């Protein structure tokens, strides 16, 4: 049959229609598979962004997926991307990158189209990235890496000593690290948080020579889900251990001394492998180094958690075994033991299991003399006190946590158990009256925190649940009886007993979500908490046979139930280099107070608390911040229980009979300069606070020096003004300097012995620290502190001057030997006295390092055998002179070995 739609080609008859259809299909297929995406890239000010990198990929940001096509825009911001879509992708990602703008990744359908994105200018520009063998600093965006070899000085042994050399770092006596006046949030070892905030175990145990580099992680987010999503102002540190370290490494220190038998042993074995890390520490000493803080949490955790946590009750006062004004090693008479072990197991890439245990025991004592004069009107009372105090603390800790840390999910559950036992005794002579004071305290607490973050519509929903239980039992016995006029008895009482038992339960949760409306980011946080707290107290006078009746106010069974909801709305708007933050908090509280099943009070409070701040980042070095806020607080549990409590042998307190509401208006101004490469930091902060509360304290002191504190319902005003300036700079490339100056002014009101007083305290404090050690034959460290205080009570004014110098000289006599001379001097004086209290202490030590991992030392401590330290200070209407005992002259030999 002839084919009408056929063409004859070379005598072949071919059907035309199917071929036409096929050809048309091919054409349409090819045109479908060819994608062209083009457009013009502009910024939020509608200015075109030239030479921007444009990538088409199968995943967001092109980080993981194949790069399908790429190009660079021209000088007008125009770009074209062509792709042969043979794999028939439904959608692709187009990512725009430029060093001066935030990265933008847009998911589009895999078809030809015009795409004109708008980019936002970055606040933090490309920082200088300079690799230099001299400075040994690498800066990449928010991470500053310090090479340990370039930072360490010859005498540095532990990594803590090297960390202390990083510009901007200060380390407290308990090992807490601050960077630019902010506590660090985490200390990682090889990128993993083994110690969960108890990092002084590592920083004081890991030898410096085991660490390759120290990373300072600014604007740090621990949870991966928060990276590139949640702004952060936290700082964390990461220690990179050298690859060639043995699986087990660490340090061993041991000292022994005479004439008092002293010893110090410190072993920290560390095991680090890919999936398991373990760090143990065994420390024991009686050389004046307290181990109380070994293994304690030095980080502030999540600020939202902190708000929800219990204020653990601590009513009675332990005997004071602390000196002040002088470094601890000169006065602490101790026997301390600490054993810790922390293990981390990594299962799969993102699941961590951690367990930590610790036991700390400290037995300390001190001899103190004090002479205090309390002024009120034209009268005064003098209190002379000689005490011999000792205190023994035992602390047990277990912590278990599980963590999953992924780019789209964060989960962490942490369970901690703590038990604490403390017993102490004071032998006191107060204004010729001998007093024996015994104290004991047992505490137990358990807490479980659960944090879960996941994304909803590409925004993070952050949730947390907190459960805490705290149990505390405190007892004091005072021989002979005190406050007999306040706790009358009709028999000859011999002792005063105070018993306090408290229980606290806390159930709290919060949920947080951010949404973006145009250029504004809104953060919504809802917190809810329920606390049930009970305090059971008994106060009595007694002898062997009789005891005063225990009824209210000497006995109290106080229950407080608090229900609180807190709704917080944060709005954040960015305009060029300005960040505007407005925060409004609506707080509702319901308090139900029950005393001895009789008094039952129910109160409701609603507070609206605004906070406004402006942050202006001038460039990568200068920034400026101001904020104003109004906050209202009410009494917490420890300020509400109504019974009469004797807190120690000379203090009696009775809380206000109603809830004290305090309104706080505060304003802050910050100015910051930061140049990491040059190690130059400048911080200036001015702060003004105005506090108004409903109750004013009424203190009464009698001739025996016993103080009674009551509260009267009278508005009380406190005003403070402070300005702090701190500078860290290296001069002449040699001398590392830290300077700080602080001025503070405070005005407070109180009643003292029925006389109304307005107290003004003004302090000027200047501190300087110089460090010169250029790896030559000497090294010098000098720290100076001057404090000038002015106290004004009505027309009476005193001034106090306190000067402290600490000088350390190191002489490297050969490549293996070093002499160390240490000199500490404190001088204090008061305007009304001709006496100037001077104290000078001198130590000398010799170090010999025969091998890389071993060094030996011999030292003579307190060379001139000073026995007491004298100081004087003033505050409000009190002038106080104190004296406390020092550790005697001691000769010690020691060995340090790096495992």
């Amino acid at each position: 049959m002839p084919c009408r739609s056929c063409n004859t080609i070379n005598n072949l008859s071919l059907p035309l229609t199917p071929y036409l259809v096929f050809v048309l299909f091919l054409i349409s297929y090819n045109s479908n598979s060819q994608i062209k995406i083009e457009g013009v890239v502009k910024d939020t000010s509608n200015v075109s962004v030239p030479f921007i990198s444009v990538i088409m990929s199968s995943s967001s940001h092109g980080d993981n997926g194949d790069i399908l096509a790429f190009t660079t825009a021209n000088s007008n911001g125009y770009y074209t991307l062509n792709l042969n879509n043979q794999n028939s992708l439904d959608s692709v990602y187009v990512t725009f990158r430029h060093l001066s703008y935030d990265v933008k990744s847009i998911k589009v359908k895999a078809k030809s189209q015009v795409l004109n994105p708008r980019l936002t200018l970055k606040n933090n520009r490309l920082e200088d990235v300079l690799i230099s063998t001299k400075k040994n600093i690498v800066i990449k965006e928010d991470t500053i890496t310090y090479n340990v070899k370039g930072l360490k000085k010859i005498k540095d042994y532990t990594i803590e000593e090297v960390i202390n050399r990083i510009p901007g770092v200060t380390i407290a006596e308990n090992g807490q690290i601050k960077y630019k006046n902010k506590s660090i949030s985490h200390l990682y070892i090889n990128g993993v948080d083994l110690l969960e905030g108890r990092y002084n175990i590592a920083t004081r145990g890991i030898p410096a020579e085991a660490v390759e580099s120290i990373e300072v992680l600014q604007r740090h987010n621990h949870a991966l889900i928060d990276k590139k999503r949640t702004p952060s102002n936290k700082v964390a540190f990461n220690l990179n251990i050298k690859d060639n370290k043995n699986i087990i490494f660490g340090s061993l220190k041991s000292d022994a001394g005479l004439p008092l038998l002293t010893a110090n042993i410190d072993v920290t074995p560390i095991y680090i492998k890919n999936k398991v890390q373990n760090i143990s520490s065994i420390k024991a000493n009686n050389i004046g180094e307290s181990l109380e803080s070994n293994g304690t949490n030095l980080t502030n955790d999540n600020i939202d958690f902190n708000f929800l946590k219990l204020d653990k009750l601590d009513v009675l006062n332990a005997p004071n075994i602390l000196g002040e004004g002088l470094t601890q090693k000169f006065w602490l008479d101790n026997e301390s033991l600490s054993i810790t072990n922390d293990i981390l197991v990594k299962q799969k890439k993102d699941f961590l299991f951690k367990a930590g245990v610790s036991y700390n025991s400290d037995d300390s004592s001190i001899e103190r003399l004090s002479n205090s004069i309390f002024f009120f009107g034209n009268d005064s009372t003098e209190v002379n006190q000689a005490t011999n105090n000792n205190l023994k603390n035992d602390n047990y800790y277990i912590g278990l946590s599980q963590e999953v840390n992924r780019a789209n999910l964060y989960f962490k559950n942490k369970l901690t158990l703590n038990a604490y036992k403390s017993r102490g005794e004071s032998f006191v002579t107060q204004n010729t009256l001998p007093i024996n004071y015994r104290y004991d305290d047992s505490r137990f607490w358990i807490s479980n925190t659960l944090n879960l973050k996941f994304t909803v519509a590409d925004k993070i929903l952050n949730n947390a649940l907190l459960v805490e239980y705290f149990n505390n039992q405190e007892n004091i016995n005072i021989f002979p009886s005190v406050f007999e006029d306040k706790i009358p008895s009709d028999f000859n009482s011999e002792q005063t007993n105070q018993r306090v038992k408290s229980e606290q339960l806390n159930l709290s949760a919060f949920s947080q979500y951010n949404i973006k409306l145009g250029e504004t980011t809104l953060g919504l946080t809802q917190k809810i908490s329920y606390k049930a707290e009970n305090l059971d107290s008994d106060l009595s006078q007694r002898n062997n046979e009789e005891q005063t009746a225990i009824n209210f106010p000497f006995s109290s069974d106080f229950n407080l139930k608090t229900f609180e909801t807190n709704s917080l709305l944060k709005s954040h708007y960015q305009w060029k280099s300005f960040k505007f933050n407005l925060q409004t908090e609506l707080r509702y509280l319901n308090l139900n107070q029950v005393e001895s099943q009789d008094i039952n009070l129910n109160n409701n409070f609603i507070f609206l608390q605004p906070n406004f701040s402006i942050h202006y980042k001038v460039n990568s070095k200068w920034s400026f911040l101001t904020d104003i806020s109004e906050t209202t607080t009410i009494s917490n549990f420890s300020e509400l229980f109504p019974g009469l409590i004797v807190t120690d042998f000379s203090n009696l307190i009775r809380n206000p009979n109603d809830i004290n509401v305090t309104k706080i208006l505060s304003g802050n101004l910050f100015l910051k300069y930061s140049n990491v490469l040059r190690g130059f930091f400048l911080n200036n902060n001015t702060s003004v606070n105005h506090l108004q509360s409903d109750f004013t304290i009424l203190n009464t002191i009698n001739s025996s020096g016993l103080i009674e504190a009551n509260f009267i319902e009278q508005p009380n005003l406190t005003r403070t003004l402070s300005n702090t300036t701190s500078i860290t700079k290296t001069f002449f490339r040699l001398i590392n300097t830290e300077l700080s100056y602080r001025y503070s002014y405070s005005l407070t009101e109180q009643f003292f012995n029925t006389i109304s007083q307005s107290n003004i305290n003004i302090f000027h404090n200047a501190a300087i620290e110089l460090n010169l050690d250029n790896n030559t034959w000497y090294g010098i460290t000098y720290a100076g502190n001057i404090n000038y205080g002015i106290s004004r009570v009505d027309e009476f004014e005193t001034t106090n001057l306190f000067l402290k110098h600490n000088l350390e000289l190191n002489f490297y006599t050969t490549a293996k030997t070093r002499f160390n001379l240490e000199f500490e001097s404190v001088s204090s004086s008061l305007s009304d006295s001709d006496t100037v209290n001077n104290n000078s202490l001198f130590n000398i030590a010799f170090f010999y390092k025969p091998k890389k991992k071993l060094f030996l030392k011999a030292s003579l401590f307190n060379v001139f055998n000073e026995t007491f330290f004298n100081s004087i200070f003033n505050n409000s209407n009190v002038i106080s002179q104190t004296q406390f005992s020092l550790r005697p002259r001691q000769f010690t030999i020691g060995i340090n070995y790096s495992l």
Partner: protein
Amino acid sequence: MKYLLLVLLSSMLSHAQSSRDNMYSITYLNSFKDRLSQNYQSKEYSRLLVSGNQSIYQLYNVMELDSLLKKGTVTDSDYNRYFSHNKHTINISDNTIKYRDEISEEVYSYEEKLNLNWTLGQDTKLIKGYSCKSATVTYGGRQWKAWYTLDLPISFGPYKFKGLPGLIVKITDSTQTYDFELYAIVERKLKPLEKYFKKPDTEIIKTDRLTFNKVKASYESLSLNEKLNYNNLGGKIKIFKADGNTDESLSFRNPKRIEKSKDLNLIEVDYKK
């Protein structure tokens, strides 16, 4: 007080910079063997300045010496201090290369249209803290493997290499005799991307890439004495014969010279074909 604050703010604002006023200064560490028989790697720093779609690439010492020459403060000891194995300058604008180099006292230049066909790889690697992806290309008779990072979206690299979605952090040839690795990157205030030349444009010899490479190979194959003669005789070799006559022809028949030419390992080797 408010005026003081205004003055303070103004002075700070004057320090704020825009991206258009800046350029990027990228330093590379070059490790190379320009002789195959060499048993060590020579090392030298090079500097790449990038602004928009333009760049200039030079050896670091050459740049420093140029800066002194321009100021007119160069001394004899500076020539030793800022010695460089290579004196080339590579200007790139869009995809057009202007290459300049010196052979003895003469300056040569050529233009080239850059057309690098990169093949993107799947490998990833962490180099100098940057997460890098791989890419390969053939150029100048060599196979090159580059590592580039999306974190630095600058489509440039050392020598003539450009056109990847991110800055080239490291690039090595397949024989492992040429390697460029990122050393530093700094943002600087924009200044003209030009090279200082002591010779005027009219005295520059214009040629093409292959011819230039042949001439360079020939010159580098000369011995030190021959080079000295070449320099003194304005480009000719004087061979002294036993009979006291001289022959000023350029000749490569000396067997030692042939060995030297085989030992030569220039960065571009396709002139041999």
